[in-house]
């Protein structure tokens, strides 16, 4: 890649943002009810009826206020949450891969998402605020769970002052399994009726939330992603080697700590709304690196937008494949992401073998 210039940064991000906007409009137009956003602007309800009404009662379709309800209260919130979740997971994936110096890192595989889920499910089970704890509380518990997991991972995977790539993946898998068991334990103790949403959280599902939740989530994620992007050059230097970064004047420990805090924060914020969506934080960063190069100052925001696009398309597909039954999006991302991980792992091993 040519070196990063302000021009390239603006062009790439503007292009991606335009594509995302287009996708948001398109995906908000598709659904089993058959409404499109254009129905909002139809003056004559009767004239709005297309020949194929998709199995719906004509009278209902003709009502613009119902179209508005469907699109603004159901589809658009879901579309926006999918975009936000995808953006955060991809940005967090990029950052974890960089600071843990591990190309296989992903918030889901490493158990960072799982730690967040254990945090908020435990809090919910403890009975704060009814069956499901209020979102800020859930979010805080999720944040605590994800931060604790990153700390554990680094501690467990360190040997002779170095944090190994393969040990970290193994430890992440084990932590994930333990978290899953603990979540099931909590669920069994409390009884399934109080935590009826748990199963959906375990596979990752895009819920329909109010605009208050969406606004709060947007605030946290935008702040987090901008904060991480601001660390971009230091993350580049750390990718070139810790000693190199320190020699170039980077305060490595502080950069790493701040990056872990931000990345865990946005992961936890997403997990507390959508549950565990796997592999989005692995696939998208690698695709973004291929497309836009490894410079974190462009890579973090570009991967975020690309991640939003990816999860939006995945969730739209999840809504449609078995329509009118809706599939949790985590099912789709795991089916695509699992094989991708295996391919990546094998490719990397082959490369290591050649280098040696």
């Amino acid at each position: 890649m040519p070196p990063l210039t302000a021009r390239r940064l603006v062009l790439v991000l503007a292009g991606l943002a335009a594509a995302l906007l287009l996708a948001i409009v398109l995906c908000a137009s598709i659904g089993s009810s058959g409404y499109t956003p254009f129905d909002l602007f139809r003056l004559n309800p009767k004239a709005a009826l297309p020949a194929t009404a998709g199995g719906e009662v004509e009278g209902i379709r003709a009502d613009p206020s119902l179209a508005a309800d469907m699109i603004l209260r159901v589809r658009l919130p879901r579309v926006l949450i999918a975009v936000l979740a995808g953006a955060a997971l991809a940005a967090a994936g990029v950052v974890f891969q960089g600071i843990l110096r591990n190309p296989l890192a992903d918030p889901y595989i490493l158990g960072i998402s799982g730690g967040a889920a254990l945090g908020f499910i435990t809090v919910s089970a403890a009975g704060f605020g009814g069956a499901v704890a209020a979102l800020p509380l859930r979010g805080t518990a999720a944040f605590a769970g994800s931060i604790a997991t990153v700390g554990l991972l680094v501690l467990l995977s360190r040997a002779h002052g170095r944090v190994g790539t393969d040990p970290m993946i193994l430890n992440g898998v084990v932590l994930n399994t333990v978290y899953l068991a603990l979540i099931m334990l909590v669920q069994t103790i409390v009884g399934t009726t109080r935590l009826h949403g748990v199963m959906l959280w375990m596979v990752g599902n895009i819920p329909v939330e109010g605009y208050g939740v969406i606004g709060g989530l947007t605030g946290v994620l935008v702040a987090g992603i901008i904060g991480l992007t601001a660390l971009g050059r230091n993350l580049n230097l750390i990718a070139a080697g810790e000693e190199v970064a320190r020699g170039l004047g980077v305060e490595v420990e502080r950069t790493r700590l701040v990056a872990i805090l931000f990345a865990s924060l946005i992961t936890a914020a997403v997990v507390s709304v959508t549950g565990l969506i796997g592999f989005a934080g692995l696939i998208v960063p690698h695709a973004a690196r291929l497309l836009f190069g490894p410079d974190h100052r462009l890579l973090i925001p570009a991967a975020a937008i690309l991640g939003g696009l990816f999860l939006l398309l995945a969730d739209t597909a999840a809504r449609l494949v078995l329509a009118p039954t809706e599939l949790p999006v985590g099912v789709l991302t795991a089916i695509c992401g699992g094989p991708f991980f295996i391919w990546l792992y094998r490719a990397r091993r082959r490369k290591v073998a050649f280098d040696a």
Partner: protein
Amino acid sequence: MPEPAAPILEARSVVFRHAGTEKAIFDGLSMAVDAGEFVGLLGPNGAGKTTFLRLLAGLASPLSGEIRLAGRSLADYRPRDRARTLACVPQESALLFDFSVLEVVLMGRAPHLGALALEGHADLEAARAALSEVGLDGLADRPLSALSSGERQRALIARALAQQPRVLLLDEPTAFLDLKHRLQIYEILKRLSTQGGLTVVAVSHDLNLAARYGSRIVVLHHGRVAADGDPATLVTPALLREVYETDAMVGRDPVTGAVYVVPRTPLSL
């Protein structure tokens, strides 16, 4: 009579031991380097060469004593200010992702840039100048991983040069390189030191290269300076027996005039 210039880099009674160990590696080590010198830092395995280089680079801090850079204690430098005066090429060079050669060299501009600034025209020029110093002009857009080991080492030296430092420290810059590439690296360092006025300190295992190109060699042994001075008079069979525990022949190359060492047998097996 003019005052003699203060040394640009100086270790004063440095004491250091690794965390969790009893034995001090250095117990009051002192050494001074003047501006423009090309110092070969030699010594057997375990003599503390790399540790000493890391102390000089500010990557580790002495337990007592101090390192002084351009007349100020290194501890008083902010990391960024230090990186504008002193550059270090460490041995470890595992690059995580596929950055291009130019991107890698531009990283050397970081200490000159504001926290959020992108590299500008002046930085690109500094990076291209550094690349041409090491003879890699044509390879700027290649991924670093596609370069040969010799080229890669030169790219890492170019990154250090892009910092526009007054002092350049290198840890075994020619490890893993064949004859031609070893000579290339030392030719480049020699030119930087004599023509560019750069102060160079290079840790080396290669006595012959250090003796031929260095204006001075410093031999570390058991955490002390065992010998220090002009390679032409310093490198003797007696020194090699004492420090490297090796019986060796020392000769003089009739063409370059440099002393050279042919090791014969170790003193013990």
